[in-house]
Structure formats: C-alpha cells, structure tokens
C-alpha cells in the first residue's frame, strides 16, 4: 500500500512549494498535495485549490497542515464536503509538522500513527 500523503493548505504558494521541495529532497517517497495562495497566485486561500488538492489524495489517506485561521476553515470545509474518510487535519506547525509527518509516512506509518507522532512532538494536534 502506498504511503500516506501530505496535504498543505497555506496562504502562500511559495510556502507550499518550499515545503514540497524540502520533503522531496530530504525525505522522498511521499506525495505532497498543495493548495497555496489564492486563485491569482497571490497571498490568500482558494477553496477550489483546496478541493483539488484533496481530490488528489491517494488510497492511504493524508495528514493535512494549514498555516493561518482561514486556511484551517477551508481545509475543514473541504474534508466535510468531499466526505473524505482517511484524511485528518493536524494543527501542528505547517513546516515542522509536515516535515515530521513526511518522515513518518516515508517509513510506512499510517495516518493514525503519524497523528500520534505529531501529538508527541507538538502536543494535541488532532481536531
């Protein structure tokens, strides 16, 4: 079975791209689905981008990270509307959390195991 995906919902496309490269270069073997910035590529969040990112999640599910408050709302709404089962939001910091989650995913951990690791490292993260 494939590794758990990482989904990133950020106000900035550069931030999501940076995290993606970090994970590709320093971890590898983990798919990153990203929704960064608004439609026009500026600072903001786009619900359409968020939905698309979620639609690309693979069969092993995903752990989702966001930066500021409205990214969280968009991510939660997309999870509810698409009725995604094995996709969970983490309130761990987006860069540090996504990196740790990618490391765990790369060695085959499940969504729940990854959320546990995140909780140990960053405190309660699962809402």
């Amino acid at each position: 079975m494939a590794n758990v995906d990482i989904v990133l919902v950020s106000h900035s496309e550069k931030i999501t791209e940076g995290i993606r490269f970090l994970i590709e270069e320093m971890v590898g073997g983990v798919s990153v689905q990203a929704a960064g910035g608004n439609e026009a590529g500026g600072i903001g969040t786009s619900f359409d981008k968020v939905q698309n990112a979620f639609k690309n999640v693979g069969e092993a599910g995903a752990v989702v990270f966001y930066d500021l408050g409205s990214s969280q709302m968009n991510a939660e709404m997309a999870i509810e509307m698409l009725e995604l089962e094995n996709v969970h939001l983490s309130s761990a910091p987006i860069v540090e959390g996504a990196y740790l989650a990618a490391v765990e995913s790369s060695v085959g951990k499940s969504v729940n195991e990854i959320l546990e690791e995140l909780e140990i490292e960053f405190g309660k993260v699962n809402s």
Partner: protein
Amino acid sequence: MELDVRQTVDWMVKANEKVQEQKDYLSQLDRAIGDGDHGINMARGFQEIANTLPNEEFEEVSDVLKKTATIVMSKVGGASGPLYGTAFLKMSMESKGSNVDGETFEKMVGAAVEGLKQRGKAKEGEKTMIDVWSPVLDVLKEVSEINGEKIREAAHTAMEATKDMVATKGRAAYLKERSKDHLDPGSVSSYYLFEALAETLEKG
C-alpha cells in the same frame, strides 16, 4: 408568510447591491482591525452570485442557497468565504424539501449559527459575524413568522454592539484591546445581508 425561490434570488441580488455600494466602507473597517480586504472579498463573491442566480432555474429555496454557498466558498476567500459558505450551506441543508415558513427559517438560521460557531471555533461576544447572526436567531425564536423589520432591527443593534467588543477570534484577535472602538467588518456585512432580506420581504 413564506420565502419563495424568486424572493430568495431577489434577496441575494439586493445583498449584492448593498455590498457593492459599501465595498470601500467594508474594506476600511477591515483595515482598522484586519487586513483591509473584506469589501473586496464580499464584492467579488456577491457580484458572481448576482450574475449567476437570476439566470438559473431552481426547484426550491434550498437549491438557491446551495448555489449561493458554492459561489461564496469559491469566490469570497479569506475567513469570510468559508464562514458565509458554511452559513448558506447549513441553511440550504436545513430547508431541503420544505417550504420556508417562519418555523423553517428559524431552524435554518439556527443551523447557520451552529455552523458558524463550529467553523470559526467561536461563540457570541468574540466580535465576529456570529454576534449578528445569533441575535437574529433570538428574534426569530420570539416571533412565529419571518418578520423583516424585527430582523433588520436586531441585526442593526447587534452590529453596533460589536464596537465595544474585544476580538478574540480571527485576524482582529491579534490586536487584543486595540480591536475595541471599531465595528467588526463581518458583522457589518452580515447586517447588510439581513437588511436586504427585510427589504425583499417588504417588497413582497
């Protein structure tokens, strides 16, 4: 008195007129305690709503609200996008298959308030749009019909009351005490929404 499909479309078109008129004012309010884009966000989303709804066929009010929710989510952006999107979606879900009389409308706004609280992780008194939606729900509980004038009045008083509040949710929360003495932008736009409803009901 019931709210029908045509009136619901009229309501949204009127809400858009108000939002366009007050676009700069809403952004100005958001500049004081936020990032200054609330007018732009709302104008972008509601323009699309006003462009779309009158040209589509809807079976029932629930469908109008569902379409509205979808557009709001895609087009408004910011925090208000998912919040208004959730509010309209909950109202749509709650009214599915029903005529919208006073009782149903009360349930719909009740569902919207629940949705806003859940989505925003917020409650009353935190200087957000919930501080307009929740008092409107209270007044709906008191009356048995959809009383436009009472709704408008309650929304207006509630909007003004956000001036004295300290923000503890959303971007304005970063300002803490300094968020006082300013109206909450999302509460002002919510007031326009309910004002547009009242005017739609008046017109019949």
